[in-house]
């Protein structure tokens, strides 16, 4: 390994010596760009190591162990540190948010890119980009005052369920709203970059512009739309404030959309302050953080593999 690096480096230096003028600048530039790339991978590794180190205590102790991942009982007063509730909560909340945001966001992007009157396009994009800049606490406050009461007094009764509105559904909705701007703008960019000649090929076969957008443009824009979903997955798993405020934070695994839930970010935020002086408790919270990071990394990798597969079957690069 280090042998390899040594060889690469001396190869690079040889190339640099023999290159001249602009070629030398190009080589230096490429080497320069390598540094931030390496640095950011190093940061991920460092953080993983740090989280592993901090959570080692709970994973090694008889009260904890690897079993905490599937154990749903969290009661620090009695030294019970099962974190399954939070894993399930985050997982469901993320899937729900993505399930709402992706279809809506893609519909929005399709409208913007393919059907929106030219004059409205700019202003609408600007508003959507501004939505991305709203702090999550503001979304949280709004959801707490508007969305949860609406779920509690309108939606739940309509389904014949009793709920105060603080629920998995509220978390999913507010997360979805927060993800929408990214999905819409990134997908819109992807749709816009589909070459005109592909659209024309479809129109020239007698397709309407709706058929063209749905069957050709969407397929061709798939890598970009996929990238939007990847970005959103990461954000959805890690989002804290807004979700904390509307999901009710009850120590249970939700069985319906109207049940309250407790997500990983919320338990860390809520309890880290008290836990700091209790080594096991504190370590358990770091274990939650470790699982959170691994979950968002694996979501990202899975989504990327899926996109790569999709691109390969379509012959896209």
């Amino acid at each position, binding site marked *: 390994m280090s042998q390899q690096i040594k060889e690469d480096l001396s190869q690079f230096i040889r190339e640099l010596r023999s290159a001249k003028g602009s070629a030398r600048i190009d080589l230096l530039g490429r080497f320069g760009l390598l540094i931030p790339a390496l640095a950011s991978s190093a940061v991920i590794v460092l953080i993983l190591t740090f989280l592993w180190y901090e959570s080692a205590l709970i994973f090694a102790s008889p009260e904890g162990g690897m079993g905490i991942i599937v154990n749903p009982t969290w009661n620090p007063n009695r030294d019970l540190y099962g974190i399954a509730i939070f894993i399930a909560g985050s997982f469901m909340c993320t899937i729900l948010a993505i399930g709402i945001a992706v279809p809506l966001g893609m519909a929005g992007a399709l409208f913007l890119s393919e059907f929106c009157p*030219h004059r409205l396009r700019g202003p609408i994009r600007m508003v959507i980009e501004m939505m991305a800049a709203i702090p999550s606490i503001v979304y949280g406050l709004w959801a707490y005052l508007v969305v949860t009461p609406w779920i509690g007094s309108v939606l739940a009764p309509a389904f014949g369920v009793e709920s105060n509105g603080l629920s998995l559904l509220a978390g999913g909705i507010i997360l979805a709203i927060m993800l929408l701007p990214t999905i819409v703008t990134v997908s819109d960019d992807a749709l816009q970059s589909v*070459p005109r*000649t*592909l659209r*024309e*090929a*479809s*129109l*020239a*076969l*007698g*397709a*309407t512009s709706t*058929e063209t957008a749905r*069957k*050709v443009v969407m*397929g*061709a824009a*798939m890598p970009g739309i996929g990238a939007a979903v990847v970005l959103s997955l990461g954000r959805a798993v890690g989002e804290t404030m807004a979700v904390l405020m509307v999901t009710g934070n009850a120590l249970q695994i939700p069985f319906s959309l109207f049940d309250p839930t407790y997500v990983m970010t919320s338990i860390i935020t809520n309890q880290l302050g008290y836990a700091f002086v209790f080594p096991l408790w504190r370590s358990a919270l770091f274990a939650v953080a470790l699982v959170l990071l691994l979950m968002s990394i694996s979501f990202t990798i899975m989504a990327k593999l899926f996109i790569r597969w999709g691109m*390969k*079957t*379509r*012959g*896209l690069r």
Partner: protein
Amino acid sequence: MSYDYKIEVRDLSTWFGKKKILKEISCYFEDNSVTAVMGPSGCGKSTLLRSLNRLNDTIGSFRMSGEVLLEGENIYAPDSDVYDLRRRVGMVFQRPNPFPMSVRDNITYGPKLHGMKDIDELDNLAEQSLKKAALWDEVKDSLEDPAPNLSGGQQQRLCIARALAVDPPVLLMDEPVSSLDPISAGKIEELITELKKEYTIIMVTHNVQQAFRVSDQAAFLYLGELVEFDKTKRIAEAPSDDRTEAFITGRIG
């Protein structure tokens, strides 16, 4: 319905914004013939072709006057069905533009749009279209492969097959070989002579020799004017306009 020509263009003028591109053009295209449209770049060849399937309508600043009759009916009439028109007037573009889908899906895209659902029927049609485009032997074992992985020449023949799959009596080709290597170009040229037996073909080309080889009649456009329109043989022997002569002898263009 009886008509004199497959397509007849009457006094066609077109504009992009304020700029007049085609100037009072009148010409006609007969059944089972190949017409070559020649002229220097920017003279309006593509614009003329795209007026025949109303593809220019998709460009906001486009305006036109005059008439284009397809089998005797004005395609620009208010009650004319543009989607049906485009089914009947197929188009092949300058650069191969296969959809990012499998070879088979590329071919069945059009027929499915127009309501064909039966799988066997679609498979059969895909085979027939690929055979007509002289591509079947090369792709029959890889129908599920992504079309963009084919070579440039194969992609262009796939685009021809895709256009043929909706059974258009007229085929427009906008410099169909200009982005291809000479061998692929030769294959497509051969194919065009073959397709003439069934279709009315209107082909833009920048290559005079090619126009002389494959076309029955030829049109020469210069700065948006139709300078010459006659049997190819006659133009090749004795062009009636100096500008045509300058173009075919390579002095302009």
